[in-house]
Protein backbone atom coordinates (compact mmCIF):
# COMPACT_ATOMS: atom_id res chain seq x y z
CA UNK A 1 0.00 0.00 0.00
CA UNK A 2 2.68 2.48 0.94
CA UNK A 3 5.91 3.36 -0.73
CA UNK A 4 8.74 0.97 -0.03
CA UNK A 5 11.07 3.64 1.32
CA UNK A 6 8.59 4.77 3.98
CA UNK A 7 8.84 3.30 7.48
CA UNK A 8 6.47 3.82 10.42
CA UNK A 9 9.22 5.71 12.25
CA UNK A 10 8.89 8.53 9.73
CA UNK A 11 5.99 10.96 9.88
CA UNK A 12 2.83 9.46 8.40
CA UNK A 13 1.92 12.81 6.90
CA UNK A 14 4.69 15.22 6.12
CA UNK A 15 3.80 18.70 4.90
CA UNK A 16 6.65 20.92 3.68
CA UNK A 17 6.38 24.58 2.73
CA UNK A 18 3.00 24.24 1.00
CA UNK A 19 1.69 27.16 -1.04
CA UNK A 20 -1.76 27.32 -2.55
CA UNK A 21 -3.65 30.13 -4.27
CA UNK A 22 -7.19 30.41 -5.54
CA UNK A 23 -6.71 32.94 -8.32
CA UNK A 24 -5.29 36.09 -6.74
CA UNK A 25 -5.91 34.92 -3.22
CA UNK A 26 -3.06 33.03 -1.59
CA UNK A 27 -4.65 30.84 1.08
CA UNK A 28 -1.61 28.83 2.11
CA UNK A 29 1.69 30.67 2.39
CA UNK A 30 4.25 28.08 3.28
CA UNK A 31 2.81 25.58 5.75
CA UNK A 32 5.03 22.93 7.28
CA UNK A 33 3.96 20.27 9.75
CA UNK A 34 4.41 16.57 10.51
CA UNK A 35 1.95 14.04 11.80
CA UNK A 36 3.28 10.81 13.26
CA UNK A 37 1.48 7.54 13.32
CA UNK A 38 -1.18 7.41 16.03
CA UNK A 39 -0.98 11.14 16.60
CA UNK A 40 -4.07 13.33 16.85
CA UNK A 41 -3.58 16.90 15.73
CA UNK A 42 -6.06 19.73 15.69
CA UNK A 43 -5.85 22.70 13.39
CA UNK A 44 -7.66 25.75 14.69
CA UNK A 45 -7.93 29.30 13.49
CA UNK A 46 -10.30 31.96 12.25
CA UNK A 47 -12.46 31.46 9.15
CA UNK A 48 -10.54 31.87 5.92
CA UNK A 49 -7.21 31.02 7.51
CA UNK A 50 -6.71 28.07 5.13
CA UNK A 51 -7.35 25.22 7.56
CA UNK A 52 -9.85 23.39 5.40
CA UNK A 53 -7.82 23.98 2.26
CA UNK A 54 -4.81 22.46 3.97
CA UNK A 55 -6.48 19.20 4.89
CA UNK A 56 -8.22 19.00 1.52
CA UNK A 57 -4.76 19.14 -0.03
CA UNK A 58 -3.67 16.10 1.98
CA UNK A 59 -5.97 13.79 0.01
CA UNK A 60 -5.59 15.76 -3.22
CA UNK A 61 -9.12 17.15 -3.33
CA UNK A 62 -7.27 20.41 -3.84
CA UNK A 63 -3.96 20.54 -5.66
CA UNK A 64 -1.05 22.53 -4.24
CA UNK A 65 0.99 25.09 -6.16
CA UNK A 66 4.34 24.36 -4.58
CA UNK A 67 5.89 22.49 -1.70
CA UNK A 68 5.43 18.87 -0.79
CA UNK A 69 2.87 16.72 0.99
CA UNK A 70 3.80 13.12 1.61
CA UNK A 71 1.40 10.51 2.98
CA UNK A 72 3.25 7.34 3.87
CA UNK A 73 5.93 8.37 1.42
CA UNK A 74 3.48 9.04 -1.44
CA UNK A 75 4.10 12.51 -2.84
CA UNK A 76 0.75 14.21 -3.36
CA UNK A 77 2.19 17.09 -5.38
CA UNK A 78 2.77 14.94 -8.42
CA UNK A 79 0.82 15.12 -11.66
CA UNK A 80 1.11 11.34 -12.02
CA UNK A 81 -0.18 10.73 -8.51
CA UNK A 82 -2.11 7.49 -8.14
CA UNK A 83 -5.11 9.05 -6.41
CA UNK A 84 -6.73 5.74 -5.60
CA UNK A 85 -3.60 4.55 -3.80
CA UNK A 86 -3.51 7.78 -1.80
CA UNK A 87 -7.20 7.79 -0.94
CA UNK A 88 -7.20 4.20 0.20
CA UNK A 89 -4.91 5.37 2.99
CA UNK A 90 -6.63 8.65 3.78
CA UNK A 91 -10.21 8.83 5.04
CA UNK A 92 -12.11 12.08 5.09
CA UNK A 93 -15.22 13.34 6.86
CA UNK A 94 -16.86 16.57 5.74
CA UNK A 95 -18.72 19.37 7.43
CA UNK A 96 -21.91 18.64 5.49
CA UNK A 97 -21.66 14.82 5.94
CA UNK A 98 -22.13 14.37 2.16
CA UNK A 99 -23.70 10.94 2.47
CA UNK A 100 -25.11 9.37 -0.67
CA UNK A 101 -28.81 10.24 -0.27
CA UNK A 102 -30.06 7.35 -2.41
CA UNK A 103 -28.35 4.71 -0.30
CA UNK A 104 -29.22 3.47 3.18
CA UNK A 105 -26.79 3.96 6.05
CA UNK A 106 -25.47 0.43 5.61
CA UNK A 107 -25.16 0.79 1.83
CA UNK A 108 -23.30 4.07 2.30
CA UNK A 109 -20.73 2.28 4.43
CA UNK A 110 -20.47 -0.71 2.08
CA UNK A 111 -20.27 1.10 -1.22
CA UNK A 112 -16.62 2.10 -1.52
CA UNK A 113 -15.07 -1.18 -0.32
CA UNK A 114 -17.20 -3.09 -2.82
CA UNK A 115 -16.90 -0.75 -5.80
CA UNK A 116 -13.41 0.62 -5.25
CA UNK A 117 -11.53 -2.12 -3.41
CA UNK A 118 -13.61 -4.89 -5.10
CA UNK A 119 -14.00 -6.74 -1.82
CA UNK A 120 -16.58 -9.50 -1.41
CA UNK A 121 -20.00 -8.05 -0.47
CA UNK A 122 -20.74 -10.44 2.44
CA UNK A 123 -17.38 -9.76 3.98
CA UNK A 124 -17.88 -6.02 3.58
CA UNK A 125 -21.37 -6.20 5.03
CA UNK A 126 -20.11 -7.95 8.12
CA UNK A 127 -17.48 -5.27 8.62
CA UNK A 128 -19.97 -2.49 7.84
CA UNK A 129 -22.37 -3.76 10.50
CA UNK A 130 -19.56 -3.74 13.03
CA UNK A 131 -18.69 -0.17 12.07
CA UNK A 132 -22.33 0.90 12.40
CA UNK A 133 -22.27 -0.63 15.85
CA UNK A 134 -19.04 1.12 16.64
CA UNK A 135 -20.56 4.53 15.87
CA UNK A 136 -23.56 3.54 17.92
CA UNK A 137 -26.17 3.39 15.18
CA UNK A 138 -27.52 -0.13 15.50
CA UNK A 139 -31.10 -0.14 14.23
CA UNK A 140 -30.47 2.61 11.68
CA UNK A 141 -28.83 0.36 9.08
CA UNK A 142 -31.72 0.61 6.67
CA UNK A 143 -32.52 4.28 7.18
CA UNK A 144 -31.83 6.71 4.39
CA UNK A 145 -29.69 9.77 5.19
CA UNK A 146 -32.78 11.99 4.87
CA UNK A 147 -34.35 10.09 7.75
CA UNK A 148 -31.40 10.60 10.10
CA UNK A 149 -30.42 13.56 12.24
CA UNK A 150 -27.28 15.52 11.46
CA UNK A 151 -25.32 13.80 14.19
CA UNK A 152 -26.45 10.37 13.02
CA UNK A 153 -25.55 11.20 9.43
CA UNK A 154 -22.14 12.39 10.48
CA UNK A 155 -21.52 9.14 12.36
CA UNK A 156 -22.52 7.18 9.26
CA UNK A 157 -20.02 9.32 7.35
CA UNK A 158 -17.31 8.37 9.85
CA UNK A 159 -18.18 4.68 9.51
CA UNK A 160 -18.18 5.05 5.73
CA UNK A 161 -14.65 6.42 5.83
CA UNK A 162 -13.45 3.75 8.23
CA UNK A 163 -14.78 1.01 5.98
CA UNK A 164 -11.86 1.71 3.65
CA UNK A 165 -9.43 0.90 6.51
CA UNK A 166 -7.53 4.17 6.19
CA UNK A 167 -4.30 4.87 8.05
CA UNK A 168 -5.15 8.50 8.67
CA UNK A 169 -8.48 10.28 9.05
CA UNK A 170 -9.16 13.88 8.08
CA UNK A 171 -12.02 15.69 9.81
CA UNK A 172 -13.05 18.96 8.22
CA UNK A 173 -15.11 20.92 10.79
CA UNK A 174 -17.32 17.89 11.21
CA UNK A 175 -19.42 19.35 14.00
CA UNK A 176 -19.83 22.85 12.58
CA UNK A 177 -23.16 22.11 10.87
CA UNK A 178 -24.65 20.11 13.73
CA UNK A 179 -27.27 21.00 16.31
CA UNK A 180 -25.58 21.56 19.66
CA UNK A 181 -27.24 18.52 21.24
CA UNK A 182 -25.82 16.15 18.60
CA UNK A 183 -22.28 17.51 18.60
CA UNK A 184 -21.30 15.35 21.51
CA UNK A 185 -22.23 12.01 19.97
CA UNK A 186 -19.99 12.76 16.99
CA UNK A 187 -17.13 13.91 19.18
CA UNK A 188 -17.43 10.73 21.19
CA UNK A 189 -17.10 8.66 18.04
CA UNK A 190 -13.97 10.56 17.06
CA UNK A 191 -12.53 10.28 20.55
CA UNK A 192 -13.10 6.55 20.46
CA UNK A 193 -11.13 6.39 17.22
CA UNK A 194 -8.33 8.54 18.55
CA UNK A 195 -7.98 6.41 21.65
CA UNK A 196 -7.85 3.37 19.41
CA UNK A 197 -4.65 4.72 17.87
CA UNK A 198 -6.04 6.13 14.63
CA UNK A 199 -3.98 8.98 13.23
CA UNK A 200 -6.33 11.94 13.04
CA UNK A 201 -6.08 15.43 11.61
CA UNK A 202 -8.96 17.61 12.68
CA UNK A 203 -9.99 21.08 11.69
CA UNK A 204 -12.23 22.14 14.50
CA UNK A 205 -13.75 24.93 16.52
CA UNK A 206 -14.39 22.67 19.50
CA UNK A 207 -11.64 23.93 21.82
CA UNK A 208 -12.66 21.76 24.74
CA UNK A 209 -12.49 18.73 22.52
CA UNK A 210 -9.15 19.76 21.06
CA UNK A 211 -7.72 20.19 24.51
CA UNK A 212 -8.98 16.77 25.51
CA UNK A 213 -7.96 14.58 22.56
CA UNK A 214 -5.24 16.39 20.65
CA UNK A 215 -1.56 15.54 20.97
CA UNK A 216 -0.66 18.73 19.20
CA UNK A 217 -2.53 21.89 18.28
CA UNK A 218 -1.74 24.16 15.35
CA UNK A 219 -3.11 27.68 15.16
CA UNK A 220 -3.30 29.05 11.61
CA UNK A 221 -4.09 32.55 10.48
CA UNK A 222 -3.95 34.04 6.98
CA UNK A 223 -2.30 31.01 5.46
CA UNK A 224 0.50 30.42 7.92
CA UNK A 225 0.94 28.44 11.13
CA UNK A 226 1.23 31.13 13.76
CA UNK A 227 1.80 28.96 16.77
CA UNK A 228 1.67 25.34 17.80
CA UNK A 229 2.21 23.16 20.80
CA UNK A 230 0.74 20.42 22.94
CA UNK A 231 -2.63 21.35 24.50
CA UNK A 232 -1.15 21.47 27.98
CA UNK A 233 0.86 24.56 27.09
CA UNK A 234 -0.90 25.86 23.97
CA UNK A 235 -3.98 27.24 25.71
CA UNK A 236 -2.20 28.71 28.68
CA UNK A 237 1.07 29.94 27.26
CA UNK A 238 0.16 31.32 23.84
CA UNK A 239 2.70 33.99 22.96
CA UNK A 240 1.59 35.41 19.66
CA UNK A 241 -0.96 38.24 19.98
CA UNK A 242 -3.09 36.75 17.16
CA UNK A 243 -3.36 33.46 19.00
CA UNK A 244 -4.19 35.22 22.22
CA UNK A 245 -6.87 37.28 20.55
CA UNK A 246 -8.41 34.23 18.88
CA UNK A 247 -8.39 32.21 22.09
CA UNK A 248 -9.89 35.04 24.07
CA UNK A 249 -12.76 35.27 21.61
CA UNK A 250 -13.47 31.59 21.48
CA UNK A 251 -12.86 30.33 25.00
Amino acid at each position, binding site marked *: MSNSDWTPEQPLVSIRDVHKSFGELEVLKGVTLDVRQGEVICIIGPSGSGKSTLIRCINA*LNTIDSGSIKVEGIEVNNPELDKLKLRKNVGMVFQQY*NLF*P*HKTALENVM*MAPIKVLKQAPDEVEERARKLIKRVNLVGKENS*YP*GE*LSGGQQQRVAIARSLAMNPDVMLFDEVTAALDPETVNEVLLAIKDLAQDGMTCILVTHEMGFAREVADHIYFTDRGVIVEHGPPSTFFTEAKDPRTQEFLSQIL
Partner: protein
Amino acid sequence: MNSFQQYFYDLAQTHPKWNFIYFYDPTQTDRVIEGFWMTLELSIICVILSVIIGIVGAWVQGAHSKTLRLFMQGYIQFFRNTPPLIQLMFFYFALGQFTPTYSPDGWLEVPIISNVGWAIISLSFFAGAFNVEIFRAGIEAVPESTQEAAEALGMNRLQIYIYIVLPLAFRVTLPALNNNLVNLVKTTTQALAIAVPELLYQMISIYNDYSTAQNACMLFLFFAYFLLVGVLVLGMSRWERKLRIPGYGT
Protein backbone atom coordinates in the same frame (compact mmCIF):
# COMPACT_ATOMS: atom_id res chain seq x y z
CA MET B 1 -68.38 -13.18 -39.84
CA ASN B 2 -68.96 -13.06 -36.11
CA SER B 3 -71.48 -10.72 -34.50
CA PHE B 4 -68.84 -8.08 -33.70
CA GLN B 5 -67.75 -7.96 -37.33
CA GLN B 6 -71.36 -8.12 -38.47
CA TYR B 7 -72.25 -5.11 -36.33
CA PHE B 8 -69.58 -2.91 -37.91
CA TYR B 9 -70.37 -4.24 -41.37
CA ASP B 10 -74.02 -3.25 -40.91
CA LEU B 11 -73.01 0.10 -39.45
CA ALA B 12 -70.98 0.84 -42.60
CA GLN B 13 -74.06 0.06 -44.68
CA THR B 14 -76.39 2.34 -42.73
CA HIS B 15 -73.82 5.08 -41.92
CA PRO B 16 -71.37 5.22 -44.84
CA LYS B 17 -69.22 7.87 -43.10
CA TRP B 18 -68.44 5.46 -40.26
CA ASN B 19 -66.90 2.55 -42.05
CA PHE B 20 -64.83 0.76 -39.42
CA ILE B 21 -63.48 -1.50 -42.11
CA TYR B 22 -60.59 -2.77 -39.97
CA PHE B 23 -63.07 -4.36 -37.60
CA TYR B 24 -64.68 -6.65 -40.18
CA ASP B 25 -62.24 -6.99 -43.08
CA PRO B 26 -59.40 -9.31 -41.93
CA THR B 27 -56.96 -7.88 -44.50
CA GLN B 28 -57.39 -4.39 -43.05
CA THR B 29 -57.24 -5.75 -39.49
CA ASP B 30 -53.84 -7.21 -40.29
CA ARG B 31 -52.64 -3.88 -41.64
CA VAL B 32 -53.68 -2.14 -38.44
CA ILE B 33 -51.98 -4.76 -36.30
CA GLU B 34 -48.81 -4.61 -38.39
CA GLY B 35 -48.82 -0.83 -38.18
CA PHE B 36 -49.33 -0.90 -34.46
CA TRP B 37 -46.44 -3.33 -33.94
CA MET B 38 -44.20 -1.21 -36.10
CA THR B 39 -45.09 1.88 -34.08
CA LEU B 40 -44.49 -0.01 -30.86
CA GLU B 41 -41.16 -1.31 -32.12
CA LEU B 42 -40.05 2.14 -33.27
CA SER B 43 -41.14 3.69 -29.99
CA ILE B 44 -39.47 1.17 -27.71
CA ILE B 45 -36.18 1.01 -29.61
CA CYS B 46 -35.97 4.79 -30.03
CA VAL B 47 -36.83 5.44 -26.38
CA ILE B 48 -34.07 3.08 -25.23
CA LEU B 49 -31.48 4.35 -27.73
CA SER B 50 -32.28 8.00 -27.06
CA VAL B 51 -31.89 7.51 -23.32
CA ILE B 52 -28.53 5.81 -23.88
CA ILE B 53 -27.48 8.68 -26.16
CA GLY B 54 -28.57 11.13 -23.46
CA ILE B 55 -26.58 9.41 -20.73
CA VAL B 56 -23.43 8.98 -22.79
CA GLY B 57 -23.79 12.48 -24.24
CA ALA B 58 -24.09 14.10 -20.85
CA TRP B 59 -20.95 12.24 -19.80
CA VAL B 60 -19.12 13.48 -22.91
CA GLN B 61 -20.25 17.03 -22.15
CA GLY B 62 -18.23 16.87 -18.96
CA ALA B 63 -15.16 15.41 -20.69
CA HIS B 64 -11.75 17.02 -20.46
CA SER B 65 -11.26 17.03 -24.22
CA LYS B 66 -12.46 20.25 -25.79
CA THR B 67 -12.90 18.58 -29.17
CA LEU B 68 -15.29 16.04 -27.70
CA ARG B 69 -17.29 18.74 -25.95
CA LEU B 70 -17.51 20.81 -29.12
CA PHE B 71 -18.58 17.76 -31.08
CA MET B 72 -21.36 17.09 -28.58
CA GLN B 73 -22.46 20.71 -28.71
CA GLY B 74 -22.58 20.55 -32.50
CA TYR B 75 -24.65 17.39 -32.39
CA ILE B 76 -27.16 18.89 -29.97
CA GLN B 77 -27.51 22.12 -31.92
CA PHE B 78 -28.00 20.30 -35.21
CA PHE B 79 -30.65 17.90 -34.01
CA ARG B 80 -32.44 20.33 -31.75
CA ASN B 81 -32.66 23.21 -34.19
CA THR B 82 -33.90 21.33 -37.24
CA PRO B 83 -37.29 19.67 -37.77
CA PRO B 84 -37.36 15.91 -37.24
CA LEU B 85 -39.20 15.45 -40.52
CA ILE B 86 -36.30 16.97 -42.44
CA GLN B 87 -33.84 14.89 -40.44
CA LEU B 88 -35.70 11.73 -41.37
CA MET B 89 -35.72 12.63 -45.04
CA PHE B 90 -32.08 13.69 -44.96
CA PHE B 91 -30.99 10.46 -43.33
CA TYR B 92 -32.97 8.26 -45.67
CA PHE B 93 -32.66 10.06 -49.00
CA ALA B 94 -29.26 11.74 -48.64
CA LEU B 95 -27.21 9.47 -46.40
CA GLY B 96 -29.07 6.42 -47.67
CA GLN B 97 -27.42 6.89 -51.08
CA PHE B 98 -23.99 6.36 -49.62
CA THR B 99 -24.66 3.30 -47.51
CA PRO B 100 -23.27 0.06 -48.86
CA THR B 101 -25.66 -2.45 -50.41
CA TYR B 102 -25.74 -6.20 -50.50
CA SER B 103 -27.31 -8.58 -52.94
CA PRO B 104 -29.38 -11.44 -51.53
CA ASP B 105 -30.03 -13.10 -54.91
CA GLY B 106 -27.42 -11.71 -57.29
CA TRP B 107 -29.93 -9.33 -58.90
CA LEU B 108 -31.35 -7.03 -56.26
CA GLU B 109 -29.21 -4.40 -54.55
CA VAL B 110 -30.52 -3.94 -51.02
CA PRO B 111 -29.07 -1.20 -48.78
CA ILE B 112 -27.81 -2.57 -45.49
CA ILE B 113 -29.85 0.03 -43.61
CA SER B 114 -33.57 -0.14 -44.41
CA ASN B 115 -36.00 2.75 -44.09
CA VAL B 116 -37.00 1.38 -40.68
CA GLY B 117 -33.32 1.39 -39.73
CA TRP B 118 -32.94 5.00 -40.81
CA ALA B 119 -36.08 5.98 -38.93
CA ILE B 120 -34.70 4.40 -35.77
CA ILE B 121 -31.33 6.11 -36.18
CA SER B 122 -32.77 9.49 -37.05
CA LEU B 123 -35.47 9.56 -34.35
CA SER B 124 -33.09 8.27 -31.68
CA PHE B 125 -30.58 11.00 -32.45
CA PHE B 126 -33.36 13.57 -32.51
CA ALA B 127 -34.73 12.67 -29.08
CA GLY B 128 -31.23 11.89 -27.81
CA ALA B 129 -30.14 15.49 -28.38
CA PHE B 130 -32.88 16.68 -26.02
CA ASN B 131 -32.06 13.91 -23.56
CA VAL B 132 -28.44 15.07 -23.34
CA GLU B 133 -29.61 18.50 -22.23
CA ILE B 134 -32.16 17.00 -19.85
CA PHE B 135 -29.56 14.78 -18.21
CA ARG B 136 -27.08 17.64 -18.05
CA ALA B 137 -29.56 19.69 -16.04
CA GLY B 138 -30.04 16.74 -13.69
CA ILE B 139 -26.32 16.23 -13.31
CA GLU B 140 -25.80 19.87 -12.48
CA ALA B 141 -28.34 19.48 -9.69
CA VAL B 142 -26.16 16.85 -7.93
CA PRO B 143 -24.16 18.71 -5.28
CA GLU B 144 -20.43 18.98 -5.92
CA SER B 145 -19.87 18.04 -2.28
CA THR B 146 -21.56 14.65 -2.69
CA GLN B 147 -19.28 13.87 -5.61
CA GLU B 148 -16.31 15.05 -3.58
CA ALA B 149 -17.15 12.59 -0.84
CA ALA B 150 -17.16 9.80 -3.43
CA GLU B 151 -13.86 11.07 -4.78
CA ALA B 152 -12.38 11.05 -1.28
CA LEU B 153 -13.43 7.40 -1.03
CA GLY B 154 -11.24 6.59 -4.01
CA MET B 155 -13.88 6.45 -6.76
CA ASN B 156 -12.80 7.51 -10.22
CA ARG B 157 -14.81 9.77 -12.52
CA LEU B 158 -16.67 6.91 -14.19
CA GLN B 159 -17.56 5.24 -10.89
CA ILE B 160 -18.80 8.54 -9.48
CA TYR B 161 -20.89 9.04 -12.61
CA ILE B 162 -22.42 5.58 -12.55
CA TYR B 163 -22.98 5.06 -8.82
CA ILE B 164 -23.60 8.57 -7.51
CA VAL B 165 -24.33 11.19 -10.16
CA LEU B 166 -26.59 9.22 -12.48
CA PRO B 167 -28.89 7.71 -9.84
CA LEU B 168 -29.39 11.13 -8.25
CA ALA B 169 -29.61 13.04 -11.52
CA PHE B 170 -32.06 10.51 -12.90
CA ARG B 171 -34.59 11.26 -10.20
CA VAL B 172 -34.41 14.96 -10.95
CA THR B 173 -34.72 14.47 -14.70
CA LEU B 174 -37.62 12.03 -14.79
CA PRO B 175 -40.40 14.61 -15.31
CA ALA B 176 -38.54 16.32 -18.16
CA LEU B 177 -37.46 12.98 -19.61
CA ASN B 178 -41.07 11.86 -19.45
CA ASN B 179 -42.15 14.81 -21.61
CA ASN B 180 -39.46 14.22 -24.18
CA LEU B 181 -40.21 10.52 -24.49
CA VAL B 182 -43.90 11.31 -24.97
CA ASN B 183 -42.90 13.63 -27.79
CA LEU B 184 -40.67 10.96 -29.27
CA VAL B 185 -43.46 8.39 -29.39
CA LYS B 186 -45.67 10.90 -31.17
CA THR B 187 -42.87 11.90 -33.55
CA THR B 188 -42.55 8.30 -34.77
CA THR B 189 -45.58 9.07 -36.98
CA GLN B 190 -43.30 11.21 -39.12
CA ALA B 191 -41.47 8.09 -40.25
CA LEU B 192 -44.41 7.97 -42.64
CA ALA B 193 -42.41 10.32 -44.86
CA ILE B 194 -39.87 7.60 -45.62
CA ALA B 195 -42.57 4.94 -46.02
CA VAL B 196 -42.02 3.17 -42.72
CA PRO B 197 -45.19 1.07 -42.39
CA GLU B 198 -46.12 2.31 -38.92
CA LEU B 199 -49.63 2.96 -37.66
CA LEU B 200 -50.28 6.30 -39.38
CA TYR B 201 -48.90 4.98 -42.67
CA GLN B 202 -51.16 1.94 -42.53
CA MET B 203 -54.20 3.98 -41.57
CA ILE B 204 -53.70 6.43 -44.44
CA SER B 205 -53.24 3.48 -46.77
CA ILE B 206 -56.53 2.04 -45.59
CA TYR B 207 -58.53 5.18 -46.15
CA ASN B 208 -56.84 5.79 -49.46
CA ASP B 209 -58.17 2.43 -50.51
CA TYR B 210 -61.56 2.85 -48.81
CA SER B 211 -62.39 6.53 -48.58
CA THR B 212 -65.45 5.89 -46.39
CA ALA B 213 -63.10 4.63 -43.65
CA GLN B 214 -61.42 7.99 -43.14
CA ASN B 215 -63.31 9.05 -39.99
CA ALA B 216 -62.99 5.61 -38.48
CA CYS B 217 -59.26 5.57 -39.16
CA MET B 218 -58.72 8.99 -37.59
CA LEU B 219 -60.68 7.92 -34.58
CA PHE B 220 -58.59 4.82 -34.20
CA LEU B 221 -55.36 6.82 -34.50
CA PHE B 222 -56.38 9.16 -31.70
CA PHE B 223 -57.43 6.24 -29.58
CA ALA B 224 -54.27 4.23 -30.22
CA TYR B 225 -51.85 7.06 -29.49
CA PHE B 226 -53.82 8.17 -26.47
CA LEU B 227 -53.49 4.68 -25.09
CA LEU B 228 -49.86 4.17 -26.09
CA VAL B 229 -48.67 7.43 -24.59
CA GLY B 230 -50.94 6.87 -21.59
CA VAL B 231 -49.20 3.59 -20.84
CA LEU B 232 -45.80 5.26 -21.15
CA VAL B 233 -46.75 8.11 -18.82
CA LEU B 234 -48.25 5.70 -16.32
CA GLY B 235 -45.12 3.58 -16.37
CA MET B 236 -42.89 6.59 -15.96
CA SER B 237 -44.80 8.02 -13.01
CA ARG B 238 -44.83 4.60 -11.33
CA TRP B 239 -41.10 4.49 -11.78
CA GLU B 240 -40.79 8.00 -10.40
CA ARG B 241 -42.67 6.94 -7.28
CA LYS B 242 -40.60 3.80 -6.92
CA LEU B 243 -37.36 5.77 -7.11
CA ARG B 244 -38.43 8.28 -4.50
CA ILE B 245 -35.98 8.30 -1.58
CA PRO B 246 -37.41 8.64 1.93
CA GLY B 247 -36.49 12.02 3.36
CA TYR B 248 -34.92 13.27 0.13
CA GLY B 249 -36.35 16.04 -2.04
CA THR B 250 -40.11 16.40 -2.01
